[in-house]
């Protein structure tokens, strides 16, 4: 497997996961779960601004902001309950790996990126598809926003 095609922050995360044993990978995912930032106040009080990724086994809401920054950075916001640490962990990985990148960089991430984390044995295929769905949703939203701006 190669991580060359990944944006550098995401590639670093994948490398971190790959360097660990399986139980340690779950521990790292838990740390990402704990590290997922809180929503800013302007979104916290407006759940209607977020949309649910129904493919996830637990409630996961996200929104993507594009075009509001001069540098073209895409901002990602996630919300998942603490009793769904696996889902939160996936969100944490995507946040740390993708937040602040450009639309083109995000669109270049391979759709099967979640499989690079080496979690497919410890976590059921169904759950891994939840993370894939999260990435897919982000990419679709970024693509739609890019087209709208073009």
């Amino acid at each position, binding site marked *: 497997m190669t991580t060359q095609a990944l944006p550098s922050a995401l590639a670093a995360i994948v490398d971190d996961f790959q360097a660990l044993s399986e139980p340690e990978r*779950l521990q790292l995912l*838990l740390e990402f779960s704990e590290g997922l930032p809180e929503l800013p106040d302007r979104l916290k009080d407006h759940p209607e601004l977020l949309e649910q990724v129904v493919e996830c*086994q637990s409630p996961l809401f996200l929104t993507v902001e594009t075009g509001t920054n001069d540098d073209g950075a895409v901002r990602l916001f996630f919300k998942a309950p*603490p009793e769904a*640490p696996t889902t939160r962990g996936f969100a944490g990985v995507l946040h740390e790996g993708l937040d602040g990148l450009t639309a083109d960089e995000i669109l270049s991430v391979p759709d099967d990126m979640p499989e690079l984390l080496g979690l497919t044995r410890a*976590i059921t295929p169904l759950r891994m*598809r939840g993370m894939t*769905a999260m990435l897919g949703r982000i990419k679709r939203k970024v693509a739609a926003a890019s087209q709208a701006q073009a």
Partner: protein
Amino acid sequence: MPYPVEQNEKFAAYAHPERLVSTEWLAAAVESGAVAAGDLVVVESDEDVLLYETGHIPGAVKIDWHTDLNDEVSRDYVNGEAFAELAASKGISRDSTVVIYGDKSNWWAAYALWVFELFGHRDVRLLDGGRDKWVAEGRELTKDRPAPASGNYPVVERDDAPIRAFKDDVLAHLGTGPLIDVRSPEEYTGQRTHMPAYPEEGALRGGHIPTAASIPWARAAAADGTFRNREELEAIYLGEAGLTEGDDVVAYCRIGERSSHTWFALKYLLGFDSVRNYDGSWTEWGNAVRVPIVKGAERGSVPVAVGA
């Protein structure tokens, strides 16, 4: 030695009150040091594989249904050797009293309990209300991982027949005994081939097994995740579903976890002697060649070619 059975009015009405414990009872057992001493083994078994790590009942060990209870290469459960090794590593001996709890109203906890019973483990109980109730009541959680002394577990061959049904068993059962489909109404009618919010795990065809009654698993649970009382359960399963005493019942869902919850309610709360969980469930039946299905809200009848 078995740990004393909890006595309370709600449980006393059930056929087998010894199969449940309340959060109050378990909290007292933790407080008394019984869990720390290994007199009582508490097991957390969740759908979310990281939930245990975020905090669990003091002294509880974790069993992951996916990596601990399933065989890696066969779609089956672990064998006697692997189960003995797993149990011993969690501090469980053959005569241990085991209390299991988990997320999502005990889906996976009931499933783990059912697997323990495939191996004939005698004293295994569910925490009524599961993890959510414990948390909602503000009871203690810890991130400390217990280091249980190794248990002494013999190699016991699984005895599937009494409580597990395979596809051929269900085919033979058609027209002779009742089936309970515990999935959502949308899955039952065939509107969708997967449970709501789980769109990716489907089957080729949507519908239900002919003659099966639709009683979604959650009907057995009250708002706080505890089991409904006996009277309420009887109204649902004897009334609506039409089960009668002495029936040989088969329950199924999508992969057998939600139906473990119903299996538990039928067997231990209502006292049906013969209840089997069809763990192949809809992911097998909905994809299998030459098995009949029914679409729509009606239970349907057994096709002559199958029933003959």
